[in-house]
């Protein structure tokens, strides 16, 4: 039976520091994906992630287990990557959008805009990935958290420190941008496609 994160944390706090390696192995993949989406540079992402794991280990005695280890740890990853970004002079991540509730009420495009594309193709998946990689970081990160890391709005709010309205709004915009760019991509590839 797989040992829970909390059990491993208890072992690490009891002096079995080596147990922490299991936590690192468990979370390094998804955390690396998040760091890479934020920093867009493999070397920087790995360095930031290493720093985050070391900080998390040192902060373990203060981990109150109000949230899961992963949420708590992603917040550390997010903060470390954010400080790297701010050193680069990129502060887009921290800006809190004006909330446009009207946008959330946006209607679905009319019948003329009915998408008609080969959804099941592997090409589709490739295009989705490519479009996410080319998105602005604040959008690609929120998509990664929501879909890949399967975080709830509340968990994303906890990790990013953004108000829940901004989280919802940003996620909505990110999904719409992805939708539109994927459809546009298919239209450009095949002008006969009705997008």
């Amino acid at each position, binding site marked *: 039976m797989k040992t829970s994160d909390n059990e491993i944390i208890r072992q690490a706090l009891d002096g079995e520091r080596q147990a922490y390696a299991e936590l690192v192995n468990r979370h390094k993949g998804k955390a690396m*994906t998040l760091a890479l989406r934020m920093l867009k540079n493999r070397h920087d992402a790995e360095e930031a992630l290493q720093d985050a794991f070391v900080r998390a280990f040192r902060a373990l005695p203060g981990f109150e287990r109000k949230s899961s280890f992963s949420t708590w740890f992603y917040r550390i990853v997010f903060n470390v990557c954010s400080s790297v970004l701010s050193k680069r002079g990129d502060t887009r991540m921290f800006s809190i959008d004006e909330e446009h509730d009207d946008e959330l009420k946006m209607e679905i495009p009319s019948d003329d805009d009915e998408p008609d594309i080969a959804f099941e193709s592997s090409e589709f998946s490739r295009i989705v990935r490519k479009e996410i990689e080319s998105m602005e970081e604040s959008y690609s990160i929120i998509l990664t958290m929501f879909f890949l890391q399967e975080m709830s709005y509340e968990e994303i709010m906890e990790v990013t420190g953004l108000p829940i309205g901004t989280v919802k709004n940003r996620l909505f915009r990110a999904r719409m941008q992805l939708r539109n760019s994927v459809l546009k991509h298919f239209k450009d590839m095949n002008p006969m496609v009705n997008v």
Partner: protein
Amino acid sequence: MNSPQHGLQPTQQELMEFVDGTLSLARYREVEQFVLQSRRLQSEVKLQQTMHRSIREDTTVQPSVSFTTDVMNEILPQRRYMFWVKLANNSSNFFAMILVLSMIGIVLVSGPGKTQNDSNILSKTVESYSTAYDASVQNMELWIQQITHPVNQAAASPSGKFFLIGLTAFCFVVIMDEIVGKRFFHARIKQ
């Protein structure tokens, strides 16, 4: 298109929440009715679902192979610096390594065809430390003779000697790596 039976036409946000399964049950059922009656909404739902699946199927990016070891080395810095403590904790491995290296060294230094002399040298050395271990030393002498014979034969040629030196160096690196650092081989082979 609003329908008195089904309430307000779903917005884009509601359609996304419908796909996520986060709508309230009542609204979910209303939106479901709209979707069932509209090809356009069905396409939209299918598009959203496929996008979600594509993102979820996206493989996570793994850091380098030595990543976990590097993190643990940061967390346990004494692993790098407390060489002698580590050595003491693994003294049995260390003495086994010394014994193996000594045997190979004796063969290499004394050259081929001197098995008898080699074992004499070894037994004299050991006997000089304590006569109380005479019996065990005799046994060891015989054992070493048997063990070192093929090694001795191998050392007769330059290529054999070269091979033995290489093997010795390799054993040394592997054992030291295991005993002290666990950095190079541990990261590349054991993970």
